[in-house]
Each structure stands twice: as C-alpha cells, then as structure tokens.
C-alpha cells in the first residue's frame, strides 16, 4: 500500500559498514596516500578541474571513507599532466595513485 512517501536513506557515513578495502590497499601500495591533508592544492591547480570539475581531494577523502561508488568515472577526466604532483605540499605521489585507482576502479583498466 502507498503512503505517498517513502522511508529515506540515511546520508550518514557508516564507517563500520563501509568498505575500506581500497583505502587500506592504497595506503600499503603507496604510503604517501596517507599523507593527504585535503588542502585542495591538487584540485586548485588541476587543468581537468576547469573542464570536468575533477577533484582529487574529493576522490581521496571519499576513498578514505569507503564511498568508492561515487568516484567511478571521475578519474577518467585526468590528463596525468602532473601539476598536482608539483603542487602537493606533502609529497603525495598523486599520479601514481591516479593510475592505480583507475586500474582498480576499472575506469580505464590500466
């Protein structure tokens, strides 16, 4: 029977049930992944951001929260130009991570 409304899905991040495997893998594969402090330097300098709104900061933090569904095709916009590598104040190997994440999330099976 219809009540004219439905039970809403919770927006809350449930850290205990979210799948953190990707985050765990990356921090072992490329420990500099752990160093991201979400300063947004990468996103600010990103040339793809101007065209597609690609935000590496967002992608990293979502991976860290186990919300990988949201980033499925985002990284596909990256041109690997490497400006983010130069911009990152904490020496995160952003390009290496982008390639690996893309490979794992099967954007472009690198």
């Amino acid at each position, binding site marked *: 029977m219809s009540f004219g409304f439905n039970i809403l899905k919770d927006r809350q991040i449930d850290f205990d049930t979210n799948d953190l495997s990707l985050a765990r893998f990356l921090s072992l594969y490329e420990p500099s992944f752990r160093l991201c402090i979400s300063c947004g330097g990468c996103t600010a300098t990103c040339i793809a951001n101007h065209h597609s709104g690609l935000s590496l900061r967002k992608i990293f933090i979502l991976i860290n929260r186990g919300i990988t569904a949201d980033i499925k095709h985002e990284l596909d916009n990256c041109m690997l130009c490497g*400006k983010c590598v*130069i911009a990152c104040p904490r020496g995160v*190997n952003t390009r290496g991570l982008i390639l690996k994440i893309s490979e794992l999330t099967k954007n472009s099976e690198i």
Partner: protein
Amino acid sequence: MTFHPFVLPFIAGLSFIIIYFFYKTYHWISGLSDSDKKKLRNSIFTQKTYYAAKEVFLESLLHRKIFRINPLLGYMHASLAFGWFLLIVIGNLESRLYHPSDFNPPYYPIFLGFFDTDSHHTYWYAPIFKFIMNLLLIIVLSGVLLALLKRLYAGLFKMKKTTHLKMADKIPLYSLWLIFPARLMAESVAAAIYQNGGFLTTSIGKLLSTSLATESFMLTFYWLYSIALGIFFCSLPWSRYMHIPSEVVLIFFRNYGIHNTENNKELQEVELLSCSRCGICIDTCQIMTSAKVNSIQAVYFLKSLREKDYDRNKAFNCLMCGRCEKICPVGISINMHRQQSRNHISNDKGFLETAWHLTQKKKAKIAYFSGCMTRLTPSVIVAMKKIFSAANENWIFLDENNGICCGRPTKLAGLTKKASELAEANKSMIHESGADLLISSCPICVKTFTEDYHLNIPVFHHSVYLNNLIKAKKINVQKIPIQAIYHDPCELGRGLHIYDEPRQLLSSLLNLKTIHYSAENALCCGNSVAGFHLSSQEKDMITKDALIKMNTKDCDIIATACPMCKKSFVKFEQTKVKDLAEILEMAITK
C-alpha cells in the same frame, strides 16, 4: 686417426645451434613488413653490407663501444669474442695447411692437438702456429678470468652493480668458463704425450708428472672440453649468449634502415635477444645511482620482456630519460620497448564523458603554447610575453585561460587513446588560430607536437625560436657578464636532439661554461612526467645528486629550457635557476 667419439657432443651442439640460428633468421626476415623486405633487397648488394660487416667486426668482436665506456670491461668482452674468433680462424687455417688434401671435418681444428700428433715434425712453420694459438688461448683465458672476477667483485670494473643471474644463464655461463681451461688442460696433456704443444701447453705438460700424462687422462679433458662446448651451444637460445648471433642480425638490419616500430614484432624480438646484459645501462640509470633501485633498469626490463612477463613496475618505474638508450653498446631502442609494454599493460577507453571547452577565436602569426608545467613557472611566461612584444611579433597565447594537456603524459602512461583525443582537441585549437608557427616553452609538449600531432606548420621549442630572433637581429641584446651552465632537458636533448640552439643562444647572452654531464650525457632532473612509481623522496634524491654532479657551485646561473627541470632544481639549489627566456629577457636592451 680422424675421429673419436668425444667429438660427438661438440658436433651435436654445433649443428643444433647452426640449424636453430638459420631457422630464426629466416623467420625474422620472412616476418618483416613488405617495406622492410624491400629495404633489405635493395641494400643487400650495396656498400651498406660492407658497413654492416665492419660494424659487426668492430662491435660484436672488438666491442669498441664497451671499450670506450669501460676499457677493462671492453677487454673482457673483446678477449673472449675476438680471441675465440681468431682461435677458430687460425685453427682452421693451421689444420688446412697440415692436411690440404684429405677431408677436414669441422671438429678437426677444434681438437687439433688430439688428432694432429706429428705435424710439428713435418712442417717448419708449425711452431709459429703453436705459439700464436697458445698466445690466443692465454688472451681468451684472461678474459674468462676477468669474467670470473667481475662476478665476484664488480667494483674491480668500477661498476656499482652487475646483473644478477637465473639458472638459465648459469648453465651456459659456467660451461663457457669451463671450455678454455678444459682445452688448455687437454692440449697440455696432449703436448706432454705427443710433444706437439706450444710454449704454454708444453710447459704445463712438463709440470704434469709422467704418471698424470696418460692417454685416459688426456681423453677425460677432451671429453670435458667437447661436452662444455656442446652444452654451451645447446643452451644458447635460452641464454643471454643468444645475443652473439642476434646482434649480428640486428646490426645488418640497422644498416639496411630497418628500425623498431610499433608493429615490427620481429625486429623487437631481435633487439630483445641482442641484449648481452653487459649491465652498462645499470650504472647510467639515475634511478639506480641516486634512488638506489636496482630492479627496473633496461637490462632487467628487457629480460622480463623477453620472458613475455609484462611487469608493471619495470614498465612504469622509469623516467624514460633515454640515458640507457644512448649508452647501450648494442643500440637497443629501450624507450620504444618501455612505451610498448606500457601500452600493452594499459588499456583505456579514452575520456568517457569529458567535453573540452576550447574555443580559439583570435588569429595570429605565432601561436604560443606555454604548457601545463610552465603555468607553475610564471616567470617564463612573463619573459616570453616581454620578448614577443620587444620583437613586436603578432602572437596569441593558446592555453592562457582554459588550455588542456598536450597528451604526452597520457601517452607515456600507455593511454594512447586519451593522448590522441587530447591531440585532436589541441590540433583544432591550433588550426583555428591560423598561426603559421607554433612555439612552446615546454619540451614535453614540443616532443609530442612534432612526433604525434603531424601539424602542417613548424613547431619550435622557444629555445630555437629565441635563438633565431637573435640571429635575425629582431631583438637587441647585450651580453651579461656572468657565468652559466646549461642543463639539457631530457625531452629536448635526447628526446628531440636540440643541443646546439640553446647553447648558441646562451653564448650570445653570457659566458657559457661546459660541464661533463651535458648533451647526450645530460642528467634527468628526476621529475620526468614518464616516472609514475617513484616516491617524492626518491625523486628528490635524483634531483640532489644531479645538482651535485653538475657541480653548480662556481657559476652564477643554471640555465635550463624546461619548466619541470627548473621547478625541480630550485627546490634544492642556492644558485639561481633560470629559463632561457628569462635570461634573454635580462639581456634585452631598449
């Protein structure tokens, strides 16, 4: 006596390798593309063949290139290769002279000491031969000794690292080491019995007490000698020593103008087999010397490629600086192989949903493309702007607001489809500008513009353009009284062979000092866009080392022509690091 069963292993091995080699060669040639076949046909009866033969002699036998890089290593290779070669040739000559009439089987000269027991009584010149053969044997043995030492202490050869081996390499290696000592002993014993030795074999023969100088003792050594040879020949195809025949083919192909391309599988195989694993590429690789990673260098990479193992790390953990390719004595196109295996591992669908908003309305004579990295060194852009206006050029700034990447990094990542999509987008923008000259301040861009874009207008790196400006007196400069050294960016130097223009430009602006690590031998700044796996710490190690090696102390300015190099160097260098454009800007006179 003209036969004894101990020759059989040798005969077996020899015939096997000859058949195998001819089969392979046929396979390679037949596999060539029609255009390459044509090249082969047209050049086989020209002096190219002579040059090829000459090169084979110089490289495959004398190993001249290795000599230049590392004399001791060169001697080791040469003594083994050329020494052995002469042993065979002269040995044949000798046996022919002794027995001009009767049938002369291939093993005969090899085991001459056994079969020919009395010639030295008959022929006056026999002792001379004996002397030469013994001398050659000593030379070869010295080579073997060196090889042995190299295994034990690489340092002796001023080599930091030498290749580590697998079983497949050890069998032929050890059999190779065994061949000549065995031959020495065999002939020495023979000399003791038949008195047919030279100065070396005879004296060693004398040392062996009569009790040891027996028929059976001699036979054991001849068996050993023959078996060693047999094993060596048979294991050749699976070992690094396959490079001996392969390199010959490679040299001929190269001289006939047949080069490694995307779809030239045969030549790629020839190249892979031609790697002698001399290990010279290891010491020239900065990832080894500075970042202390000893597993991804060309020699290891090519090996795993030969074993059809597309190792991700070996393929992507490389700066593609091209230093190894330049120094490789065999001249293998290593970067091409890396690029190909990256393409093989990667498999992209291109940009699925990105839409580029590139609209170039303005028209001008010159189109300037700064490139992504140059945005991070705005001083270069400012300088270029000043220069353009000083030379009152009619120009536009292509990627000033919302430019996109040239596509080289994606190409280097093996994402060829993405790269071509970016190229298309940029090409239409360049086209719309209506410019008849494209200039970029970034060697990475220039490289891909020239090689992959197939534009109908000339593409200049700004160093070339600026040099032309000076030459054409379109801009007035005054020499600045300062010392500078010039660092060749990988993509500009080894990548595009632009060495002279920057130097001409600089020497017209200031006093240019020459340094050891320049031109083809220039170092990588560590931040090449081709390097995907290095950590920032490792990159920093490379940058710091490069600066130390370039010995930047006693100069006022480090000049370079790549924003990436500049960005890397300023991180650690007290001396000013300036782009050519900035230096020219300083020298402009009103």
